[in-house]
């Protein structure tokens, strides 16, 4: 019991001390996240258990530990430690290091609390800290608009959840996140409460329609914040809430599952297609975060054991490689001072370790076997096929699969534009240095993690982590043998390497480019990475496929990708547009009503008095 209070309070107290003594707040954040890692691992020894703390006599505060909450606590603590380690010598304001441990403590509290009201307390408290964290901007950028948007959207989803919880408490009497038996969703009030809480979970995880704050924040807050908030904390907490909601509190019906899967598919489509056309690495990753949240939602929405296991596994994978990606792009930004893809290029030579980490994490994100993203997506596909809950299931499958293909597309774009393309003239590669140890070590560690979670998918993460958490056994997953595949892949790579080393026929020959007898400037001949898909949003589909095919960037699938990309971009744009319009219409109603009300206060006393008399008249009319 004392362990739990220590676990929750230590980071909060360290954060508060850091608030007073700003100088040491960086080190306090590092130490406190290390301590919480230690404590949360200790929690494993207490499993399973429930602990009651009595603050004031009538109110018991109940914490409940099971493998799910403890595992997620460990993951949160470890990732927070890595984020702090990564950010510790970067040019970030000290306030960042004050909020991070406080946010850690609060999220641990939310993960471990059993009582819905207590959970709500932590959850809302976290919103305040998130708002504070988002207000810590990059140097020279004003994050207030983005932070406000986040506060508004997350606040709206939190209020929905508050309402849902109150509904459940007052009508059905569900007061706990971990009731002994799940209840069937039958009465309309329970369904309403369920959907409201669902909105809270989807909002937290970054799903449609609460996602728009993430890309807006992406290029105004430091990369470490992006790595911490949308890709670690929100994913873990959102997934946790949704798993509890769908498996422990209620037995959802197929129509509910359909709703969740539709939300998930829309999220995937928006995230992936919007990611493809961003000119900025951070924004690409931000949309990618949204897209991957969609996979988690779809996996949970199947309600199939494999789907839930896959979603959980995908969540773990996602926090591993996405954090790594944010770290590496952050290092690039710190080293070059640039974030637009057009201004970057050729960094693979000067930042080899960062390049390697980015390569591995990126391919893992794209789901390239045998890296980690593949297996979890594979499980989610299988769950969609096996559950077949609704005739729409092929649509979900297509959304998920093409999302995966296009993920590879934008990752290759990022990879090419940042590390492989010819650098722009004004980027002096000689003056750029590899990140310091704490800059390259965390992403490298995460990349290794992505390899381990992929190659040994069955023996390590599924058998040791995922399977014990879930009550049902995860059945065989088709004939995917990651270890065998890896060995084959390694042999292939080895052969390739031999050919590269000993063969001469394949060696490319460098030569100068001439047009009309004149040597052209290399800058003109350069193809920056942003031009990869720059034509997509503007031109007609057929024309685009034509140019694209001519360019020959991806000969093996460019026709399919072309068709679906354009369809998807149209769909993504339309949905984004509709959301935008929805918010605009609400804002317009708000403005017009406000304008009318404001005009009515004309400052003329007799008008005001006539309102009084009118009011008096109606009072008499109704009461007398």
């Amino acid at each position, binding site marked *: 019991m004392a362990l739990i209070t220590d676990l929750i309070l230590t980071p909060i107290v360290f954060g508060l001390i850091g608030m007073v003594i700003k100088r040491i707040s960086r080190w306090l954040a590092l130490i406190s996240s290390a301590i919480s890692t230690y404590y949360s691992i200790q929690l494993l020894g207490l499993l399973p258990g429930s602990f009651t703390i009595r603050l004031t006599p009538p109110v018991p505060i109940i914490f409940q530990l099971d493998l799910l909450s403890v595992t997620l606590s460990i993951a949160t603590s470890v990732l927070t430690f890595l984020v702090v380690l990564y950010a510790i010598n970067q040019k970030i304001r000290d306030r960042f290091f004050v909020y991070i441990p406080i946010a850690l403590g609060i999220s641990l509290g939310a993960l471990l609390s059993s009582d819905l009201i207590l959970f709500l307390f932590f959850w809302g408290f976290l919103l305040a800290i998130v708002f504070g964290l988002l207000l810590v901007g990059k140097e020279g950028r004003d994050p207030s608009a983005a932070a406000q948007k986040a506060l508004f959207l997350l606040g709206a989803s939190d209020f929905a959840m508050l309402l849902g919880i109150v509904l459940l408490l007052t009508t059905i009497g569900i007061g706990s996140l971990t009731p002994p038996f799940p209840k069937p969703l039958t009465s309309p009030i329970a369904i309403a409460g369920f959907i409201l809480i669902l909105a809270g979970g989807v909002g937290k995880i970054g799903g449609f329609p609460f996602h728009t704050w993430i890309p807006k924040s992406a290029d105004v807050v430091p990369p470490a914040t992006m790595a911490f908030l949308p890709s670690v904390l929100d994913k873990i907490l959102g997934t946790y809430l949704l798993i509890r909601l769908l498996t422990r509190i209620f037995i959802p019906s197929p129509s509910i599952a359909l709703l969740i899967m539709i939300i998930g598919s829309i999220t995937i489509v928006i995230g992936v297609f919007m990611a493809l056309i961003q000119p900025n690495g951070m924004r690409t990753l931000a949309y990618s975060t949204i897209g991957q949240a969609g996979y988690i939602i779809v996996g949970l929405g199947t309600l199939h054991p494999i789907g839930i296991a896959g979603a959980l596994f995908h969540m773990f994978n996602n926090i591993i490689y996405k954090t790594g990606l944010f770290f590496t792009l952050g290092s690039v930004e710190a080293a070059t001072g640039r974030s637009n893809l057009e201004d970057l290029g050729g960094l693979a030579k000067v930042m080899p370790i960062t390049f390697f980490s980015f390569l591995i994490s990126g391919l893992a994100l794209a789901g390239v076997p045998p890296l980690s993203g593949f297996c979890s997506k594979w499980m989610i596909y299988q769950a969609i096929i096996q559950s077949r809950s609704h005739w729409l299931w092929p649509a979900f499958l297509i959304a998920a699969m093409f999302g995966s293909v296009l993920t590879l597309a934008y990752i290759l774009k990022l990879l090419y534009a940042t590390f492989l393309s010819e650098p722009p003239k004004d980027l002096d590669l000689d003056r750029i240095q590899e990140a310091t140890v704490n800059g390259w070590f965390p992403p490298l560690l995460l990349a290794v993690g992505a390899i381990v979670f992929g190659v040994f998918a069955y023996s390590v993460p599924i058998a040791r982590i995922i399977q014990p958490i879930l009550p049902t056994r995860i059945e065989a997953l088709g004939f995917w043998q990651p270890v065998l595949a890896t060995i084959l892949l390694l042999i292939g790579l080895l052969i390739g390497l031999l050919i590269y080393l000993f063969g001469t026929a394949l060696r490319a020959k460098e030569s100068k480019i001439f047009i009309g007898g004149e040597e052209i400037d290399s800058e003109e001949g350069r193809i920056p990475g942003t031009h990869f898909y720059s034509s997509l949003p503007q031109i007609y589909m057929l024309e685009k496929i034509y140019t694209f095919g001519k360019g020959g960037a991806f000969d093996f699938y460019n026709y399919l990708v072309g068709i679906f990309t354009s369809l998807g971009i149209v769909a993504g744009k339309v949905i984004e547009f509709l959301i935008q319009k929805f918010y605009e219409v609400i804002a317009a109603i708000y403005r017009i009503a406000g304008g009318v009300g*404001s*005009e009515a*206060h*004309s*400052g*003329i*006393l*007799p008008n005001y*008095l*006539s309102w009084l*008399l009118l009011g008096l008249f109606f009072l008499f009319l109704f009461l007398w």
Partner: protein
Amino acid sequence: MFFFITTLILIIIGLYAIVTKTNLIRIIIGFAILEYAINFFFALVGFKKGALAPIITQVDGPKNFVDPIPQALVLTAIVIGLATTALMLSFAIKLYQKHKTFDITKIKELKG
């Protein structure tokens, strides 16, 4: 009954003056009328037909008194009314000095 109807008419006259008149002084006069009407009404509440003034001169005197409490209360209310009228008039004077007008509809800088 006649007196009650009279007070009701007076109240309506007072409200009418406050709401429709635009001159500061007339509004204040409207308040005076409204206030006196209500005070008059209050005094009437304690009135009994044919009763004596509530002044006790002997221990076993006649029991047929007018209720004395409303009279005491009305006295208090008149004092309060004096304060409000004085304050309102002083506002009116100051407003005239600043705006050079007594028309309340022309004094409308605070709006929106």
